[in-house]
């Protein structure tokens, strides 16, 4: 048992020791996975705050809320298809969730090559999603004149909510792409060869969470 003065000498070591001492309340769950879950729960609170804020402004405004299915309609094949780009983005994100789930599976089978490739496909789909979002933003900002404080369609809060919610989600996807590329690179370098490749499951949790948040944004912001 160390005294406090002894512990002070090695401050950083004690911090690492205390937090890393593996007091297994959550049995059979790797430490990193617990940390990822705790982070995701806190992130849930952040996104809920955004969505509740959105609910509040939308419920309390007395100007009509812009109709998302018209605002986000896209002209294709000579007709205006409602929410076309958003639907494509949704399917891309679901596809990426599927490839990520397969990567986790391959990782646990120790099929490194397959896992790495599936992670790279996931990251590519994520990058496509961000690219489409950038296109959507530029269309709304430059062509339609949507601003956080005004827009030509109706209630001015629409712009603030749109940029805040989709921007924060897009930031998560971008961070996820970088995270996945890092993990893929490190798997290829053999950094996890000693382990059971639970790192793929941990990074997968983050990626599925990003998809999960999109489910709520799609339903509550775009469809409602």
């Amino acid at each position, binding site marked *: 048992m160390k005294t406090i003065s002894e512990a002070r000498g090695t401050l950083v070591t004690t911090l690492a020791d205390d937090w890393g001492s593996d007091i297994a309340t*959550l049995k059979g*769950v790797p430490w990193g996975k617990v940390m990822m*879950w705790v982070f995701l729960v806190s992130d849930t609170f952040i996104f809920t705050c955004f969505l509740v804020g959105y609910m509040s402004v939308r419920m*309390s405004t007395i100007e009509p809320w812009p109709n998302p299915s018209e605002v986000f309609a896209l002209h294709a094949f000579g007709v205006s298809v409602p*929410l076309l780009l958003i639907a494509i983005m949704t399917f891309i994100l679901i596809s990426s969730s599927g490839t990520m789930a397969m990567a986790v599976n391959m990782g646990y089978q120790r099929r490194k090559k397959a896992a790495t490739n599936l992670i790279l496909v996931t990251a590519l789909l994520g990058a496509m999603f961000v690219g489409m979002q950038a296109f959507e933003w530029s269309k709304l900002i430059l062509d339609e004149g949507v601003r956080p404080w005004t827009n030509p369609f109706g*209630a001015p809060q629409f712009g603030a909510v749109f940029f805040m919610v989709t921007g924060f989600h897009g930031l998560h996807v971008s961070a996820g792409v970088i995270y996945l590329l890092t993990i893929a690179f490190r798997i290829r370098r053999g950094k996890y060869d000693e382990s059971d490749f639970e790192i793929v*499951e941990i990074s997968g949790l983050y990626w599925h969470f990003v998809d999960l948040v999109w489910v709520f944004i799609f339903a509550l912001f775009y469809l409602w």
Partner: protein
Amino acid sequence: MTKETGQRHPIRIYLVVWGLLFLVSALSYSTDFLDRGFWRWTLILLFMVLKAGFIVAVFMHMRWERLALMSVVLVPPVLLMVLVGLMTIESDYTRSMRIEHFETAIPGEAMPVVEREIRNRRPD
């Protein structure tokens, strides 16, 4: 970590859920062609919960985790419903005040008109 850790499941279940997610997403998208009303909102919420459930339960492996981890992850978000309830009351009040004092209320399609709003509206 030891050999027992980690979620190992047959690939089949992932493929089935993947397919289901595509199907539910398509159904979810199709709600956009319904009029804004009870059925549209019910179906949006139904498909949203279904999709979220599939992702959390299977892709994030929650259904195979022990109750200790399930409760750490799933209980706090449920408490957020209290915040949703409080903010519903608050924004309802804000709206009724705006109608009372600014009057220019346009019967928007955004939200169903609440009873209090009608009650608070000044007689023409």
